[in-house]
């Protein structure tokens, strides 16, 4: 720790006397508070939203925050969350995909048909379904790039066309059941991380956070750049460790941490890395912010659009497979109804801008937690979907209104 604490020559970047560098834990907390006041809300609104929603539902029904219900929640949020993750990618590039519901439905049907009707191995079924999803995204990309059809229209067409494809695949059967003893269904119903491993994963996650932050801090010091204090990093890591350990402990009181949820978190982290730490991810943000500037900077803009559509449709297809495995069947209504709009709402509630260039992979995780909490809470209260639609709609409106207000405030306080 001392290697980081020893004062070296003043860092290059905060030399400007107009700049106040935060000192110590208190300074960092004050800096964060100032950011929030200026309208740089980050993840705060959605986290606050989750706290409010959980408090209300817990007050109305004591079982809402029970370990059993949270384990169920951790299963139920995954398919929609994976789809929302794809929506984040496409929104960041400044486009929209309205067909993710249909694509997930057609993918669920494909999986079931290949696995059950043609009796092929599960892995092949999954590969075929995800590959067709990616192909759909590629077609969207071509239609958008070559013919200049707005993504709104291309994917609206896709919404109908792939709903038709889903019905055609099922051909009169209301549903194709997937055998309960298949790995696919077990994965979404009964496979849990062993207790010791779940604690180990929690410790590893917090340790990884610390190690990455530490290495980054060291490199910045060596390069003569400002880096935030060690105490702040340690405090963050300890907080993360405490939260993760408590969550794992609480879930382990009943069934535990599902592998399906671990898969979702791994996907979120993977997309987060791709978006934030690769040239490709940077180019998605750039295209979403200013496509013409990106083109002049030498970025292959059409390719970025195609990749975003492929990622979105591919993840939607994966989400569809997870819907089928969760339900142990692919039916005519898989991926229909509110899946589309819930996925988009989750991404937006999580803080992804509808206008491109702003947001992160964690938006999908937190946004879907909000959506799924509402759905779960209302189910516990025995309220039907009419209430769920109305309440989810209202939450979406609040989220977008808050984002607009925060954007104005950011402008006013020079935070872009």
């Amino acid at each position: 720790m001392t290697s980081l604490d020893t004062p070296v020559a003043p860092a290059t970047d905060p030399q400007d006397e107009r700049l106040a560098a935060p000192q110590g834990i208190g300074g960092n907390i004050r800096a964060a508070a100032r950011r929030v006041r200026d309208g740089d809300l980050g993840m705060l609104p959605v986290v606050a939203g989750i706290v409010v929603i959980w408090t209300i539902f817990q007050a109305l029904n004591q079982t809402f925050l029970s370990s059993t219900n949270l384990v169920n929640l951790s299963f139920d949020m995954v398919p929609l969350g994976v789809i929302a993750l794809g929506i984040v990618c496409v929104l960041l590039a400044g486009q929209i995909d309205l067909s993710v519901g249909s694509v997930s439905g057609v993918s669920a049907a494909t999986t079931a048909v290949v696995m059950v009707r043609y009796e092929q191995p599960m892995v092949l079924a999954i590969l075929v379904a995800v590959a067709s999803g990616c192909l759909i995204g590629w077609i969207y990309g071509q239609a958008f790039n070559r013919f200049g059809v707005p993504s709104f229209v291309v994917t609206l067409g896709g919404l109908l066309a792939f709903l038709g494809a889903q019905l055609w695949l099922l051909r009169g059967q209301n549903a194709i059941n997937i055998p309960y003893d298949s790995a696919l269904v077990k994965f979404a119903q009964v496979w849990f991380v062993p207790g010791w491993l779940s604690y180990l994963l929690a410790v590893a996650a917090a340790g990884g956070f610390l190690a990455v932050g530490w290495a980054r801090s060291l490199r910045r010091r060596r390069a003569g750049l400002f880096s935030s204090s060690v105490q702040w990093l340690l405090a963050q890591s300890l907080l993360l460790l405490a939260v993760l350990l408590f969550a794992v402990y609480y879930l382990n009181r009943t069934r535990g941490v599902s592998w399906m949820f671990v898969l979702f978190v791994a996907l979120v982290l993977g997309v987060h890395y791709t978006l934030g730490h690769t040239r490709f991810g940077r180019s998605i943000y750039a295209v979403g912010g200013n496509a013409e500037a990106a083109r002049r900077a030498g970025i292959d803009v059409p390719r970025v659009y195609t990749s975003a559509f492929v990622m979105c449709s591919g993840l939607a297809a994966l989400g569809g497979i997870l819907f089928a495995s969760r339900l142990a069947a692919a039916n005519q209504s898989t991926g229909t109804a509110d899946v589309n709009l819930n996925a988009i709402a989750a991404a937006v509630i999580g803080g992804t801008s509808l206008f491109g260039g702003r947001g992160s992979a964690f938006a999908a995780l937190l946004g879907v937690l909000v959506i799924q909490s509402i759905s779960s809470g209302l189910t516990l209260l025995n309220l039907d979907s009419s209430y769920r639609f109305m309440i989810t709609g209202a939450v979406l409106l609040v989220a977008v209104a808050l984002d607009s207000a925060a954007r104005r405030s950011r402008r006013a306080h020079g935070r872009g």
Partner: protein
Amino acid sequence: MTASAPRAATDAVLSLRGICKQFGAVAALTDIDLDVAAGEVVAVVGDNGAGKSTLVKVLSGVYTPDAGTILFRGEEVRLDSPAAAHDMGIATVYQDLALCENLDVKANLFLGQELRPWMLDDVAMEKDSWRLLRELSAKIPTLDVPVAALSGGQRQTVAIARSLLGNPEVILLDEPTAALGVAQTAEVLDLIERLRENGLGVVMISHNMEDVRAVADRVAVLRLGRNNGVFDAADVSSEDVVAAITGAADNVVARRAARRAAPRTEKEVP
């Protein structure tokens, strides 16, 4: 005076000879000659439709000329694409800057040429960003803010700094002060002088006569797609340049007056 005689090609880092560009029936550029030496600021001025933008696009590789030669370091070159021009060492800062407002300063500086594509080297990029901005004595307090939060002058600085990343020898500035306030204009003019001190050839397109006279070494006037005089900025009056731009001097009375008053504004009227 005048007008500096066309320099030898060896002296100039970038030379145009007899450049023509035709759009349908319109001759946008006819027989354009232009020389830029290292450590020299050449202002290109002209009225609307004089061909300034077309000339920039020819130099930045967006348009290929129909006739004429482009010499870079004394060798004839073809500028087929913006990338070709950039790789050769001709950087362009467009009038609309082409920055991504949602990205922060260092992301914009390295856009499209990030270090370590599969594991971005943020530390090295930030270090390089500071080095570049220091070279320009740029007044940007932090690199962590999105460009949307910067003032017009700061954005212009970022755009110019970005064009310097590939170590170009010639830099084209399209209307660098057009949208700026007084103080910010001064900042950008300082910046242009620093580019000259660093030995770059600068071509600056401008409408603003004051700015041109403040920093340019030579002023090349375009009128209706043709060369209409090259002046030494030090000893030409704004009136003469304006006359060359508008063609106000291009009539019998003015020509007679000009002959009488000895060659004050010798013209290279074709």
